[in-house]
């Protein structure tokens, strides 16, 4: 909805039209953006309010808040539900996230330093080697990967899952690290070389402390990726191991598919940590996403 091209050549007229036009344009923008924002927020609203309602109220009036009948009972049950231990799933998933991030940084950091400071063809070949990974669809190699994990005795185990997830995040992480280390002046390395520090020592004590912004990006992207991962824990951990938030909710909804007093509280508990994370970290998530995507 743009204003029709103004033919009026007289300056003052056009400026007045311009101001009125700007206001009209703003009105049009809000007229488009408000319904879209509502379409995005209504599902969230439905999940939140229905987590406190009876099944009858949810089915009869899903968008209403019956103030006299709202109850914490369903949320409380969801916390102790024997079929989906939400608290346990939070803990297990958090552990998975932390171990993933630590291993990823320890493994990806030194190799990124080698690649970014190297001048030879083999360093460029090494970067290319890891970038191949971005074209390999995770689900496509999951079945053969289970064969590899089974051969190594790592199938149905926490270490097996962690190693597979770390490797899945290696390409992006190495790419981001290499790009960042290249922006750190070599003169900083040279000072450390004169002090007699070896290459690994130089990385951890001189370069790594300078990498905080990019490490933060990797922590955010990997943390969200691992927390939300479903297919890898579902298949690598197998049905008898502790549940992550995603595999737990999948298992629970297989049992209670029609009971909204189970579904909505569980959904609220599943998204609550992420929404809190989103509210406080939005700026960092956005910058992590844009550096992650636009650099590649």
């Amino acid at each position: 909805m743009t204003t029709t091209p103004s033919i009026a050549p007289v300056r003052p007229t056009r400026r007045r039209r311009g101001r009125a036009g700007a206001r009209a344009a703003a009105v049009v923008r809000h007229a488009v953006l408000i319904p879209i924002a509502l379409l995005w927020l209504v599902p969230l609203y439905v999940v939140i309010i229905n987590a406190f309602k009876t099944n009858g109220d949810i089915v009869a009036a899903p968008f209403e808040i019956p103030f006299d009948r709202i109850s914490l009972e369903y949320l409380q049950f969801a916390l102790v539900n024997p079929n989906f231990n939400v608290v346990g799933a939070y803990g297990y998933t958090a552990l998975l996230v932390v171990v993933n991030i630590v291993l990823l940084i320890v493994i990806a950091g030194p190799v990124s330093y080698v690649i970014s400071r190297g001048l030879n063809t083999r360093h460029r070949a090494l970067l290319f080697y890891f970038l191949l990974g971005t074209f390999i669809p995770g689900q496509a190699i999951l079945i053969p990967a289970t064969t590899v994990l089974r051969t190594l005795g790592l199938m149905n185990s926490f270490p097996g899952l962690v190693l597979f997830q770390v490797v899945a995040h290696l390409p992006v992480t190495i790419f981001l690290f290499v790009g960042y280390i290249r922006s750190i002046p070599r003169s900083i390395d040279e000072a450390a070389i004169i002090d007699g520090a070896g290459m690994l020592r130089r990385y951890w004590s001189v370069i790594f402390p300078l990498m905080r912004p990019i490490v933060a990006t990797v922590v955010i992207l990997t943390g969200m990726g691992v927390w939300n991962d479903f297919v890898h824990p579902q298949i690598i951990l197998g049905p008898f191991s502790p549940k992550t938030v995603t595999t737990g909710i999948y298992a629970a909804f297989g049992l209670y598919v029609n009971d909204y007093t189970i579904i909505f509280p569980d959904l609220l508990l599943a998204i609550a940590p992420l929404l809190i994370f989103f509210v406080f970290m939005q700026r960092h998530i956005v910058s992590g996403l844009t550096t992650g995507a636009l650099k590649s």
Partner: protein
Amino acid sequence: MTAISKGAVGRVSRPTAPLGRRLAGLAEFPMAFPAIALFALFELLPTVLAVVYSFASLDSFGTFRGFVGFDNYVRLLSDANSVRALGVTAVLASVGTVLINVIGVGLAVLLNHPGTIYHLYRAAIFYPFVISGLVVGFIWRAILNPDGAINSLLRGIGLPAIPFLSDGNTALATVIGVTIWNSLGVTVILYLAGLQTVPAELLEAASVDGANAWQRFRKIVWPLLGPTVTINIVLTSIGLLRTYDLIVSLTGGGGPAGQTETIAYRIISLGLAGGQVGQSSAGAVLLFLATIVLAGVVLLLRRRNEDIT
């Protein structure tokens, strides 16, 4: 052009490498080894195995029974369910990519203004990014069920219920709609980042010269946005080709009657429950090739475009 000169520099420096640099190479090895080895073991080896399995016959325990040529591909492509899964994935990826990017550019232009209200609009569209695709699917299933919120609303105002997830054609449209809801925010954020690179003085100069909003967009913003468009199209289409989690939850794994089953879902169900590792691997190789061809074609078109302009 630049690639050639870079390669030449690399080649010249190699034969003159002094002993010191070769020793540095020795120090590099232990630092690079863990990443190289793990990547080889858990990423490249499974990829190679997928290719090998796609040409092999395997029993239900996964034991190798010899090579069978293109048998697995032929069987995959003559299996109605797998062909339908390929079709569903093609429709979802192409329609989804076009809609997400067209709506994404439009919304980014509308949102590219300062002020708290625009910040809130952005947050509203972006927040699904932090939620797992699986959970997004469960949320929408709860809302779109026959007795869910939307149908309850429709019945309340005297309209017939819509079989969002229980009718084959509607279900695929629903999957595309929820996919857009889920991924639009990321695309908008990336387009907004691209719009930041358009110099404000250029737009001001154009409007002083009398260019209207559409002309400014078409002649200034759009050409400068080119690289962002390429990245977004590659990222969206590759992402949609791999759609899996959303299908597991939203349509209970490809329902009704397999009409929303994607190839990623088919690969895993064939390989696990079906015990058809050969056909599953053939599907995996096709998905892998589709990803590479797609990225290659988009980048090639882009480069040709840049050569012309």
